[in-house]
């Protein structure tokens, strides 16, 4: 199912070597247990006119109480942000954002990103190519 979520229950049952009833019961149980939480559509942002993807590594000013929550809340308001991760390590937060071109990115960076609260330091890395992106788990 990780490889192809569009497979039907009879197809999955066939591949797993069980009956359709057994496959269906197992799927229902994994959904009920929260192991399978859903399916998402994969969107190609370049095809939508956003060919630029930039990863921003942010260090926050942790001397300010509530810096994380305030930063995350404000980052959610930036429409171009696709992913927000928080970390234990050198980086506090990573934002992944898309832009139409370099001029649009510069505008976003100056007007929206640098305006986010409590930033102590920020580094930008531009995505050049996705080598592997299926995000599957090694089951």
């Amino acid at each position: 199912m990780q490889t192809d979520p569009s497979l039907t229950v009879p197809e999955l049952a066939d591949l797993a070597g069980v009956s359709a009833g057994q496959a269906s019961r197992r799927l229902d149980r994994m959904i009920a247990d929260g192991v399978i939480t859903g399916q998402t559509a994969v969107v190609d942002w370049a095809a939508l006119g956003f060919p630029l993807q930039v990863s921003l590594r942010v260090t926050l000013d942790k001397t300010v109480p509530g810096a994380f929550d305030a930063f995350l809340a404000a980052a959610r308001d930036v429409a171009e942000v696709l992913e927000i991760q928080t970390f234990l390590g050198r980086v506090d937060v990573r934002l992944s954002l898309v832009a139409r071109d370099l001029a649009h990115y510069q505008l976003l960076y100056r007007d929206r990103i640098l305006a986010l609260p409590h930033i102590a330091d920020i580094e930008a890395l531009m995505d050049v190519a996705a080598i592997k992106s299926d995000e599957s788990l090694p089951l």
Partner: protein
Amino acid sequence: MNLDDIDRTLLRLLVADASQSASALGRKLNLSQPATWRRVKRLQEGGVLVGRRLLLNAEKLGFGVTVFLGIKLATKGRVSLEDFERAVGAIPEVQVVTHVLGLYDYRLRVVARDLADFERVLRRRIMTLPGVGTVEANVMLSEERRPGPL
């Protein structure tokens, strides 16, 4: 590709739940099932909708740790990037590999059962890759995905 507001809403609905049928989507959009299906088809043919991904709870499946690695190659030019990319892409615990421009050459997203398991993956699999130089690890604490500019 040019999209209207209905296309954008349709994309948002599919990002939230890609398993919905065309008729279920159509009801939310006030469109007939065939009209909805034609729009989905157009988004697929236009290369906007490229597939579906199953959402799994990694922790419930025993993968308690996700780490982002920044990797800088030590021997650029001598070792071909293809060698590195082929080898890193074949590691099952490596979920995402992105070639980046900036402080690092590659960003990796790695899952492991726990920190001890991550250390095993790092030592045996990552550090032994052809051309690897410096590696920076950040352990993920939380993650959210946003719908993006739709």
